[in-house]
């Protein structure tokens, strides 16, 4: 079983890891979501707090927008698979992770030419 975490901003992957206050956690296995995705609202944005949560929750996969090198390296060292600089809706990102073809720097189609309220 793998566990995916995505910092959110509205329906979108939060552009910045350090400023996100809403977190989505999805458990999945063999391309299928297990149970209900869980949303956590953080009291305040904190990149270190988020790192701590990722370690404590045994997260295996992270999809995010911008993330600082320090935290990227820490999480990579903790063997978390990180897809950063991803732009798009979290639904699209989850689908891509489930199908195993999400890469860092991907701009998902849902983000292009849509009117967004961030």
């Amino acid at each position, binding site marked *: 079983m793998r566990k995916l975490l995505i910092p959110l901003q509205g329906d979108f992957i939060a552009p910045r890891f350090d400023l996100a206050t809403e977190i989505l956690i999805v458990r999945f296995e063999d391309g299928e979501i297990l149970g209900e995705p869980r949303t956590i609202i953080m009291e305040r*944005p904190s990149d270190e707090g988020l790192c701590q949560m990722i370690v404590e929750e045994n997260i295996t996969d992270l999809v995010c*927008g911008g993330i600082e090198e320090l935290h990227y390296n820490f999480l990579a060292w903790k063997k978390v698979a990180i897809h950063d600089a991803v*732009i798009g809706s979290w639904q699209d990102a989850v689908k891509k992770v489930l199908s195993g073809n999400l890469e860092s*720097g991907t701009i998902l189609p849902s983000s*292009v030419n849509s009117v967004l309220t*961030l």
Partner: protein
Amino acid sequence: MFRQPAILTLLEGIPYPSMILDSSFRIVTMNRLMVAATGYEADRVKGVHGELVVRSNVGNSRGQLYSQVIRTGEAVSVSGDILNGYRHKVPVQYHISPLANGKNGTAGLLVIAENVPSGKGDNGGDSVAGAPPELIGHSPKMQKVLDLIPLMAHTDASVLITGETGTGKDKIAEIIHKKSARARFPFIKVNCGALPLGLLESELFGHVKGAFTGASRNKPGMFKIADRGTLFLTEIGDMPMPLQVKLLSVLDDRQFVPVGGEHSVSVDVRIIAATHRPLREQVRNNTFREDLYYRLNVLHVHLPPLRERENDTRMLLDHFLEKYTRALGKTVTGFTPSALQTLLSYHFPGNVRELQNIVEYAVNICKGKKINKEQLPPYIFEKQPEAVAPAQPPVTVASEPDEKQQPSNPPAVDNGNGSSWSSIERQMIVDALKKNGGNRINTAADLGWGRMKLWRKMKKYGLLG
């Protein structure tokens, strides 16, 4: 409304990362500096909300500032930061201006992320009158160096800075850039000795997606990012031979091909190189290309070691004392006569950097008003080796003097006997780890730190296996 070629020409004339957004805040186009800052190609992000791409923090109110400018028609300027494509937080002044549509309405926005030097406004105290901040020195040898800076700033010729470790080569390079006509463009520093050949090549010249395993996106190299600015190549003497050839070719042609790419990229970059190694000797030993040596060594400045800077030591001691006293919120007012005597007679093989570390150590340790001898690092009382002071070449411009450069000094600060503040902290971590059987959670708790802080410190001190 937006005629692309005209807009792009306009944007390219702005010396900061800039982009045009439509009235729904979607990107119409952006300039090359914004491409470099975000890591996204302009064509890929067309139609994407600007904030998803720029990743700014502006008051954590994304979109609201844009809405405000559209609503009021008045430009706003706020300070903040952006997270760039290299995963670095860069301080910026964020300017958002409305673009009128000719019918009393707003067709879109011009967004400029003006780079703000991180040290802005934090000038050290007693730098020499007229000299750039943090460059301190009244000795004749330093005065000669200071006199050269305006000359070197007013030309685009390559500069080679030599000098022992800790003499301030980086600082001089930055000052030359800041005083030059390129000051509004990027100053990019690359340590040629820090990365293996493949990585350094990619770092300098960039790569295209798929160039090698892990190259999942196009990456603009430092040469491209430094376009119209200055590229500072430090530890140039450690640059691998194969890259020296490519660097020479860039210096000659002003263009290069990114790793795995097919098309050459033209750049306008000024090169400043620095090394503590005897480059001429390396040329003789065939470890540094002669043609590159002469190409870099158009202007040459040699920074004198601290032991040759006469009264500067005292001035630097006072400067760093004030700096660290302020930073640490202490009330240390000076040195006792014996401590001062010890410091003034010490020969500082690590030069200004070592002096700075000694003062930082002493201010940390000092509990009274004055720093006494006992509060200085113990290693400076050990018998010092005979001062190795080879005849230094005089400071010159346009040609290098007979170069019998300084010996490769050992890294200054720490002689391995646990004397600097850093080594004490390192030892503290090692001891705590030992005590807790390597358990990092308990170690962090023991030290009163969070786990991230412990990890950060362990990384800093090379304790992560």
